[in-house]
């Protein structure tokens, strides 16, 4: 018996948003009488935390703490249209729509504040804590709470805004394929280290070092959630997952979580995540979509590490113990 070690690398990029564009998302923002802000969307939170991120984006843009923003979403009676949550588009598309809506609301808010403070709106700034200050004279200020009250009950102004983000659809040129698939790309490089049991074909992923470039990490802890979970899924895809384990025979597909294989809590690789941030030109605060691409580089990195360990190439996913063992036997026979 020999446990053999190997390591492999892979580097990838990934487009943000629906390919070729043409995928609009809208947002509405309005303030309550006491200066809380409501973001209205129809986008769906799949568990990645879109509601939280939209709240942070709105808060940053308006100039209030995040806990003063409420996100109402996924209701077609109240929320304006969104193409949907897929293709790493949620943060990028909806985030831009929220910024646009929040900016419009902010402008009204500053205009009301300007009237209250008897200055020009262009001379005002927010402190991020819920106050509006005169630039260069911060002692002259008004709270957003008071501005909202004034707007509602004194000045009859609606502190609200509309946002729409659309990347115009690109139509590929028939013969050359000239097209614009995406406006920004995330990047990653992963190094995986594995052990392969050359008598059974079993693979243990010892470590994965993932470097991701994702534009801007809008909420680093939530980015970490995506990247850690994605890295696990990448390894799972590489070594375990299939609905047709014996294709072209289509029998014996898993129908439960015992048979449909994924790494368990006792199979976890030591996982390191490093994040670089090159803000995208058109993302909300420079964000790109990290949710999909974070599960991609581990697959080839693990495949390359298996080759490095035992000298056989498995070019069909998943890289099961059976495929490795068959390849090792073929290698020994030749």
């Amino acid at each position, binding site marked *: 018996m020999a446990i053999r070690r190997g390591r492999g690398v892979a580097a990838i990029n990934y487009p943000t948003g629906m390919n070729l564009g043409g995928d609009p998302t809208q947002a509405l923002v309005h303030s309550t009488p006491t200066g809380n802000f409501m973001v209205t969307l*129809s986008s769906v939170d799949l568990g990645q935390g879109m509601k939280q991120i939209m709240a942070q984006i709105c808060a940053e843009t308006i100039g209030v703490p995040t806990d003063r923003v409420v996100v109402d*979403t996924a209701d077609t009676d109240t929320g304006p249209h969104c193409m949907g949550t897929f293709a790493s588009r949620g943060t990028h598309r909806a985030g831009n729509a929220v910024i646009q809506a929040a900016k419009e609301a902010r402008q009204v808010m500053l205009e009301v504040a300007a009237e209250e403070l008897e200055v020009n709106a262009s001379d005002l700034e927010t402190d991020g804590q819920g106050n509006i200050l005169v630039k260069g004279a911060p002692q002259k200020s008004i709270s957003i709470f008071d501005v909202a009250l004034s707007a509602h009950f004194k000045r009859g102004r609606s502190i609200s805004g509309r946002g729409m983000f659309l990347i115009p659809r690109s139509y590929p040129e028939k013969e050359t394929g000239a097209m614009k698939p995406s406006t920004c790309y995330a990047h990653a490089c992963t190094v995986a280290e594995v052990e392969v049991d050359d008598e059974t074909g079993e693979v243990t992923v010892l470590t994965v070092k993932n470097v991701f470039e994702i534009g801007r990490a809008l909420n680093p802890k939530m980015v970490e959630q995506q990247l850690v979970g994605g890295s696990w899924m990448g390894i799972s895809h590489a070594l375990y997952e299939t609905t047709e384990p014996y294709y072209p025979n289509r029998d014996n*597909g898993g129908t439960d979580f015992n048979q449909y294989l994924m790494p368990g809590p006792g199979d976890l690789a030591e996982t390191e995540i490093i994040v*670089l941030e090159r803000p995208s030109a058109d993302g909300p605060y420079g964000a790109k979509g990290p949710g999909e691409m974070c599960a991609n580089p581990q697959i080839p990195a693990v495949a390359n590490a298996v080759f490095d360990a035992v000298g056989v190439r498995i070019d069909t996913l998943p890289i099961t113990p059976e495929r490795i063992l068959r390849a090792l036997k073929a290698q020994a026979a030749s």
Partner: protein
Amino acid sequence: MELRKNYFADVRKDDLHEIGQPRPRSDSPGHVTGKTAFFADRNFPGMLHLKMVRSPHHHARIRSIDTSEAEKHPGVVKVLTAKDVPHNVYTILILIQIGPEDETVLADGKVRWKGEAVVAVLAETERAAQEAAAKVKVDYEVLPAVFDMEEALKPGAPLVNEYHGQNYYLYDSGACRKVRFGDVEAGFAGADHILEQSYQSSPIEHAPTETTGCVVMPEGNDRFTCYTNTQAMFFTLDNTSIILQMPGSKLHFVGGTVGGGFGGKVDVIVEPIAILGAKLTGRPVSFIYSREEEMQISSPRAAEKVVIKDGVMKDGRIIARKVTGYTDAGAYSRHSPYGAQKGAGHYPGPYTIPNVWIDTYCVYTNRTPSSAMRGFGVTIGDFALEVQMDKLARLIGMDPLEFRFINAYRDGDMKAHRQPTEGAALIECMQEASRAANWPVAEKYMAMSSYKNGA
């Protein structure tokens, strides 16, 4: 996780108040107390349960369907077949003009994959629906099936889907989406080495812990509220409106927190038939996939085949790359024509190669219809590309990481689809990986930059 702020600090403002802050998630308190409402947490009095009778065959003609015994079964309220669906033949991407309509809500005359929905049974209890479903009699004439993309593309192969007329999706560019850049044959002719390799993948299930489903409530005013875990509210509403020939104003979709999507909940599968059931019975209807259905009936990530032919120089430059990608749509389009197209836009990967030829095919077979999944159109392509890169590096005796630096794209480089590269960061990711993994590369690579005028 570590944020390496030293990279790209010159183009980034780090003094924001809320952005970049690890604020607690607003949804998490609901999750840890069990108070978060998922769609299935709504239970209405008098709710009916929908169970689907499915095809046991990969490809068959339906001679007849007899639902009489099922209809008489105690607890059964309604049995639906194709004739009950106002616009039974649909395709989801028709909303962005990717047709033709090619899929039946309930099978009409033919089934094209094992597991296809044929008859829907609505009953007072799940058990009654299951028992009645077992009493539906469908007489099938089994037809030859095809499960292999290359077999499906051969002349004389069984025709999977008559709405297409051939076993591939017909793009405006023909049988495949094409990208042509430079002169790939000239590139091969001038290469020191040629390497052609083939890669394959299996369908993969999203396996969200919450299965696909919806609960529909008739509001009593000709409107229907559908609580659903779709990933795309209006996408589902608009397709339902088409299928049921019902004004969108009559439909109200409510989502919320979804128990994991990963692309598996963008097909419009459960909502139209459940709303139809609610409309025809006037009762609330629940249609929730069993785990078995989620695993074997819901669309998986497509099986793919990728053939890559590269011309490489001894000094490490890739000078020509030809990629032929095949996406197995299964029996129906769903999102696969879009996925194959996305592959065409992604190849040849994040590398600058002067001569590129790409063909991507969306192929129909009698396998379970595939659709979107995390990394759609790219994930399997990246597996193929990056294993190929490893092989190329070893072929010319070069370190695999250094080999990637030589070919990595940088700002301003022209991509094969004729967009100049912007915002590249592959080089920096590799530099940081080199450090983190203690995989040293030559100093000249560590000095490189993705910026246009970088070293």
